């Protein structure tokens, strides 16, 4: 597909600007400063990714089944209350969640993972729940009418048709997750927050940047990864990206 002339121009301009900024940074010795934190950055990025992966997969492993269970007719009465509770939960700032989990579980990686998992659980449950409820009734009627058991209907019809919405929830959740991981440092969870917050405290802007820039890049990469996964996993017939 041919891009409009203006977009192509904007892309070109951005490239030139980036190159100019890069060479300016090189000239001023900023890159050298940043690179002096290389070893720390590599180690902390590893820790950062570990936190995201563990807390993120836990959130998915808990959130999708929980949302699915809540969407079943027999839980209909309980589901509304549960969703309201979760909605209220989303209004609690993530820093507060981390602080609360520290007061429960002490200092270290465990409370960090727990807090991150809770913070990213909500969008996943909510999207799974609404995604499944939004599967049109006539599809369900057709499915049961041709003799599918409730389980077959869930796996063959409901989940595939809700998958795009579920993936949107996972994407939101992981965006929150990656952005919250730096705060994990505050409760002893490690990650790139160590460079950011220490940099702030010591008034060392380069140290702070050495933490902030990889955090930003990671956030973008995770988002792209989820988008690619959604593109590949959501069935072609119900995937708006592949229309």
């Amino acid at each position, binding site marked *: 597909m041919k891009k409009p002339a203006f977009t192509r121009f904007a892309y070109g301009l951005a490239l030139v600007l980036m190159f100019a900024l890069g060479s300016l940074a090189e000239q001023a010795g900023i890159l050298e400063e940043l690179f002096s934190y290389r070893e720390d950055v590599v180690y902390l990025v590893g820790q950062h990714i570990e936190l995201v992966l563990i807390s993120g997969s836990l959130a998915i492993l808990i959130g999708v089944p929980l949302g699915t269970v809540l969407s079943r007719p027999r839980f209909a009465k309980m589901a509304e209350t549960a969703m309201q509770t979760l909605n209220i939960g989303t209004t609690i700032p993530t820093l507060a969640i981390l602080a609360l989990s520290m007061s429960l579980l002490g200092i270290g990686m465990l409370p960090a993972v727990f807090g991150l998992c809770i913070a990213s659980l909500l969008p996943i449950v909510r999207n799974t729940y609404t995604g499944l409820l939004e599967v049109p009734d006539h599809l369900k009627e*057709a499915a049961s009418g*041709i*003799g599918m058991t409730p389980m077959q209907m869930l796996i063959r019809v409901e989940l595939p*048709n809700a998958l795009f919405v579920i993936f949107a929830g996972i994407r939101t959740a992981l965006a929150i997750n990656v952005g919250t991981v730096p705060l994990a440092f505050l409760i002893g969870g490690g990650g790139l927050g160590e460079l950011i917050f220490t940099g702030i405290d010591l008034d060392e802007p380069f140290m702070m940047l050495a933490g902030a820039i990889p955090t930003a890049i990671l956030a973008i990469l995770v988002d792209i990864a989820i988008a690619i996964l959604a593109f590949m996993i959501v069935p072609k*017939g119900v995937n708006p990206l592949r229309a």
Partner: protein
Amino acid sequence: MIRIDNLTKIFETPNGPVTAADHINMEVPEGEICVLLGPSGCGKTTTLKMINRIIPSTSGKIFINGEDTTGMNTVELRRNIGYVIQQIGLFPNMTIEENIAIVPKLLGWDANRYKARAKELLELVALDPSIFLKRYPRELSGGQQQRIGVARALAADPPVMLMDEPFGAIDPINREVIQDEFLKMQQELRKTIMFVSHDIDEAVKMADRIAIFRGGRLVQYDTPDDLLAHPVDDFVESFVGDDRALKRLRLVQVSQVMEPVTTVSPGDSLKVALERIEQQGYSHAILMVNERNQPIGYVSRSVAQTTNGLCGEHYFGLKADTRPEDDLRKVASLMFNHDTTWLPCTDEHGVLVGQVTQRGITHYLGATYHRDAPVSLAQTLQQISA
């Protein structure tokens, strides 16, 4: 065969119980289409959906091919009943092939067998497998989608099919086409079909029997012709419409009203033509055929009276002809179009087999109304005295 025995559904609503179906008794013979017809809220859909337990019944029994379904496992029961709904309900996450093959797959057929079946069914519903097998439902038009819906219902070759306003959401032109295709298919497959509709014209066209519902009760259960000729009460009469006699035209074939016809050949003189016209009591004209007995024109009475010569020199071309299997609606339309009161009827080789006249049609339709006459006369007299 589907037999329904005292089937009842009572819905509990906040405003008290509502009886949606009240002791329905009916039987659909093997291989026939029964259309459940009535205004909305009359219980026709409820009755249909109780058969495959989409709606659980309050009381009563359902027999399929003589077997009481009460004790059957719901999933098992449904896999032996084809189900087509108005919203079609194709699964958008599956290809057309997967949609059609879903029931065979659930029944545990092997891949080769259900793939072959999907292909065969696509051909049956007049869609090209090489184009459609791998497509997704959203890439198809409404009419194409409903063809797939029918194919899916037929996949495991169930003896019984339930169809809930299957063609209701399709535009009128495509609906006619799909109805015709479906009827043609049914002639081969001979499924026992229960079909919900709110459209009397569709019912008359599709049904071997029509069941009229009102307020949860089965009011009349009859063949379309009997229903139109003898509605049991005012409700049915108003429901089938003031033009019910015209609706019957569609149910009668030319062969049922065809009369023998006397003809002339091009070599006969106009005098012979006039003689035969007088003899047969034809009012306007006589048909002329060639040596293979194919109609080629007609000689009008006025020409025969005033002119001398041969028929072959003084005839008019034919305006239209019909076939024995045409329905009378088409014939009546042709007559109106061409301003004529009779039409020759020919077989597939164009050979004359008879004629159909307006008088013949009126007589045929009138004959079945006749048994009504004394009743309506009595009613009229009552009305007068009152």
